[in-house]
């Protein structure tokens, strides 16, 4: 089911959360809303779900105006950052909730819950209570609960935000796989650009209540629409008017006319990748990314004098 957002604005007191936002989400796509906190990404998601009302503008679901529909009528699945588990219900009861309120027959509910317990790998946990689960398990339960009534749209608000790095990485892969199997239109909110690029087909970059760019992950990185996207998605050095990615800086040991002198302030070894911080003769700081072999060849170490030159620049 497609989602269309038309000229939506939303204000909380004097804070402009969304300003004239328009966005198209294709049916069946996996889309990320990416932005720093306060960029309006969660508000936009909640407006799509009907949990907040826009001050102006329109939401269309599957081509139909849904602006006036309540959350209950929209039939979207929603996953909250802090799980919003029903604490007084077992895992089974949590997952069955959306089916029970729809008065589905008991046998159908039972088999659907079993199916979902399998899907989220919580077989054997059905009779536990949320307080007896780990964060990752709780979020998987919340996902199963949201999926139970077979929503046309799945909305996830920072779904992995409260989890530790490892569980987060696991659930990412898992969400991607789930989407590839079900093709439910999915929109998830994140402030983690790596997560957005890793999971989503398309990324919507938001800042200060506006959409800065909508693009595929690769395009976002290679052809950022403006300075905000350039600096928010991936690292970038600002050199005068130009922006340079850390891996687009060439580091050599001898000056060659095009290079500038710099001193190595810090070297960090991250396996295959080596990151260095350089301070140029004019005091400008530069972040450089090298492969392990390049760093070894330069014998890069703190205090060393090197010569740098941008190999690719972006000017806005």
């Amino acid at each position: 089911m497609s989602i269309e957002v038309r000229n939506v604005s939303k204000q909380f007191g004097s804070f402009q959360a969304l300003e004239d936002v328009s966005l198209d989400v294709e049916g069946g796509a996996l889309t990320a809303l990416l932005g720093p906190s306060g960029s309006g990404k969660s508000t936009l998601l909640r407006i799509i779900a009907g949990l907040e009302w826009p001050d102006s503008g329109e939401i269309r679901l599957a081509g139909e105006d849904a602006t006036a529909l309540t959350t209950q009528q929209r039939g979207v699945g929603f996953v909250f950052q802090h799980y919003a588990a029903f604490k007084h219900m077992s895992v089974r009861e949590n997952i069955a909730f959306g089916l029970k309120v729809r008065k589905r027959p008991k046998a159908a509910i039972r088999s659907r819950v079993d199916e979902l317990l399998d899907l989220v790998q919580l077989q054997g946990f059905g009779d536990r209570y949320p307080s007896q689960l780990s964060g990752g398990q709780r979020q998987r339960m919340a996902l199963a609960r949201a999926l139970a009534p077979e929503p046309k749209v799945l909305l996830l608000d920072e779904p992995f935000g409260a989890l530790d790095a490892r569980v987060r990485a696991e659930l990412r892969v898992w969400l991607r796989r789930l989407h590839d199997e079900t093709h439910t239109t999915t929109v998830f909110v994140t402030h983690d650009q790596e997560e957005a690029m890793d999971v989503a087909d398309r990324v919507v970059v938001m800042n200060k209540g506006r959409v800065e760019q909508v693009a595929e992950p690769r395009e976002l990185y290679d052809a950022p629409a403006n300075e905000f996207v350039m600096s928010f998605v991936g690292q970038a050095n600002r050199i005068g008017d130009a922006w340079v990615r850390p891996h687009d800086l060439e580091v050599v040991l001898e000056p060659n006319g095009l290079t500038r002198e710099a001193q190595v302030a810090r070297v960090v070894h991250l396996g295959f990748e080596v990151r260095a911080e350089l301070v140029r003769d004019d005091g400008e700081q530069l972040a450089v990314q090298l492969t392990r072999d390049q760093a070894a060849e330069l014998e890069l170490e703190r205090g060393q004098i090197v010569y740098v030159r941008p190999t690719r620049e972006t000017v806005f």
Partner: protein
Amino acid sequence: MRKYALRSAALGYLLLVLLGPLTMVFVRAFDKGAGALWTTLTDPNTVHAFELTLIIAVIAVPLNTVFGVVCALAIVRRRFPGAGLVNAIVDLPLAISPVVVGLSLFLLYGRTGWFGPWFARHGTQILFAVPSMVIATVFVSLPFVAREVVPTLREIGDEQEQAARTLGASGWQTFWRITLPSIRWAIVYGVVLTTARCLGEYGAVAVVSGNIEGKTQTATLRVQDAYENFNQAGAYGISLVLAAMSVIVLVAMTLLRPEEEAA
């Protein structure tokens, strides 16, 4: 050492202020033996007084429970201008002396009051009858459920309710299946306090009831009556039963509660 000093101070204070008087009531009630106590308690007017106390509680407690929950939901979940004012007004009965409450009801429903003449014309006796006693009791026991439920509602937040809505639950389903189970222990605690307050109410009821033996005399009024008429055994006996009812309610609640929290 300081830990123990603090504990014994707290415990000593409790003994002195709470348990001491209660123990005295217990001891004095049995002064003239269990037989005399039984005779006092089975006096038809005493039985009537207890019945009246219970009837009033049975009407007032459910009313204030429903009101308290609705009021708490309005204060916490609906952001409307004046919510703070409502929140403060709910506490009014705690701040106003029950005697003043009784007096104001007297003025309201009296022959020259705002509502008095209307009820008089329709042949309904409010003052010196059960209706005014119920109204007075409802007034003084109003805040307890709301006071208990408001902080619990704030603490649980509204995410679970939002989740229920996204899963297709109506407002009513959300209330019964999500909100109510989350606040049930706050409600139970509020009900216990409300009940205790209803059983113990004296001041407001004393003003509006007329204290007619066998007709508009509640248990607490009868205690005072018995005491003034030098029927000390009677006064202590009825007090004992009143105290016992409160203790039973409190103990029952304490026994129920930990099971829930362990889950």
